[in-house]
């Protein structure tokens, strides 16, 4: 008897259920939607390194699903990545490449390079032909200097001095195009990134809430979570939701006693078993 061993799948998508899903859709089943991060993400190169910025709103269609999410993902101690597109895709792909970089660091004993992260990301995304909807702004500083790249869902990449992605990218790009120059200082860089993200927050409906900033220089990374909070809750009751007695006017009072209507007879026959 020949033993047939089922080899485990080598990774990637399994397309076995596609025909069944298609049939169900034809019968009228609506597939669940996915959460997008209608977003503004930016990055720029300044004289000592790179500054990345992102807003913090995650949307599910017209609803804000998460008003303070983290869109700047850790790749390596010296490399961070902002993600726009489908939230699950950006999380998964950045996590995966981050782990691969860690293993690579153990194998080589060296600091990770930005091009390594870039190549891993673009080859993964190209293999999935755009179905992994992750648009990323990758920035970091390694032994060869500061680098800033954008990665598109189909796998193409750009190397730029300043970059924006997401639904708010045009609003942010208008700020960058009019105000960016080479050789910015750290403060100017952070200021410009915050301004670009604010342009996205206030002019794009898919972006909102707060500004996250990440500054990467040689040997040091600062993750400024919620660097700016331009959308505070303005009307908050100081007393909270406690209602003291007497706040509601009592119009009339009627007390009804609970009467016992069932009488239990003492004695009687024992229950049938």
């Amino acid at each position, binding site marked *: 008897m020949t033993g047939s061993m089922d080899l485990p799948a080598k990774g990637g998508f399994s397309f076995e259920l596609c025909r069944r899903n298609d049939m169900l859709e034809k019968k009228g089943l609506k597939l669940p939607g996915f959460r997008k991060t209608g977003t503004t993400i930016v990055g720029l*190169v300044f004289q000592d390194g790179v500054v990345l910025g992102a807003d913090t709103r995650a949307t599910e269609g017209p609803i804000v699903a998460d008003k303070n999410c983290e869109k700047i993902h850790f790749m390596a101690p010296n490399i961070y990545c902002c993600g726009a597109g489908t939230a699950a895709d950006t999380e998964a792909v950045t996590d995966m490449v981050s782990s691969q970089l860690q293993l690579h660091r153990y194998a080589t004993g060296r600091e990770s390079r*930005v*091009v390594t992260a*870039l*190549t891993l990301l*673009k080859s993964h995304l190209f293999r999935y032909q755009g179905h992994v909807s992750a648009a990323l702004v990758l920035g970091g500083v390694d032994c*060869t*200097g500061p*680098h*800033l*790249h954008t990665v598109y869902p189909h796998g*193409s*990449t*750009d*190397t*730029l*001095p300043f970059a924006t992605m997401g639904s708010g990218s*045009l*609003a942010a*790009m*208008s*700020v960058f*195009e*009019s105000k960016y120059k*080479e050789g910015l200082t750290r403060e100017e860089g952070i200021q410009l990134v915050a*301004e670009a993200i604010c*342009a996205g927050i*206030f*002019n794009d409906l898919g972006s909102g809430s707060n500004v996250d900033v990440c500054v990467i220089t040689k040997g040091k990374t600062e993750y400024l979570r919620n660097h700016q909070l331009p959308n505070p809750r303005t009307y908050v009751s100081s007393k909270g939701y406690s209602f003291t007695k007497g706040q509601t006017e009592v119009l009339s009072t009627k007390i009804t006693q609970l009467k016992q209507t069932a009488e239990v007879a003492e004695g009687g026959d024992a229950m049938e078993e």
Partner: protein
Amino acid sequence: MGSHAEGGSQAAGGGQTQRTQYPYVTGTSVIALKYKDGVIMACDTGASYGSTLRYKSVERIKAVGKHSLIGASGEFSDFQEILRYLDELTLSDHMWDDGNSLGPKEIHSYLTRVMYNRRNKFDPLWNSLVLGGVKKGPKGDEKYLGMVNMIGTHFEENHIATGFGNHLAIPILRAEWHEDMTFEEAVKLVEKCLLVLLYRDRSSINKFQIAKITTEGSTIYPPYSLKTYWGFSHFENPAQGAVGSW
């Protein structure tokens, strides 16, 4: 930008009239803003035929009567038709000879009615119009700036942008416009927006016209081009650090 087919076909017995429209020769964004002496309006002088840059010296801003300027983006032939309607309007207004002339608010109102009624007949004029002007009113010289688009949406604002300008110029205008700008400040702000549009809108060209309207009348300046900067060090050999990157 919407270029989906606006359908409406009536089968009247044997003849079928189709009002389906797509824009053919189109102009891109128009930007306008109020400043101290009146209203300033600017746009580029290009008209595209699909993805070809067909006409490079097209005036998309015209004076209307004594008090207004009209700028249009979208289908150029529809803009020419609108100018003919406005000609008829201003002519019959002139023939009243009553010492009063149509101001920007009146013309904006007229255009809104025209655009909305055409849309209701499924035969729109495929334009986004910007109407700006100054006219003496009960409170002195009143500046007016408004816009109407092909479906009849209309509003009045201190700064207007159509087409791609909505995404690229409005954020800048919202952040940097303020009351009573001088002409020089207004031109600088407008040029800032036009430059961003030149960099990032594929259908814009580097030949712009600025027009202004004040109580003295309208002035449309001759076209000129802006200086662009391409000297970023990252633009030289971007693939040197990352092979296969652009």
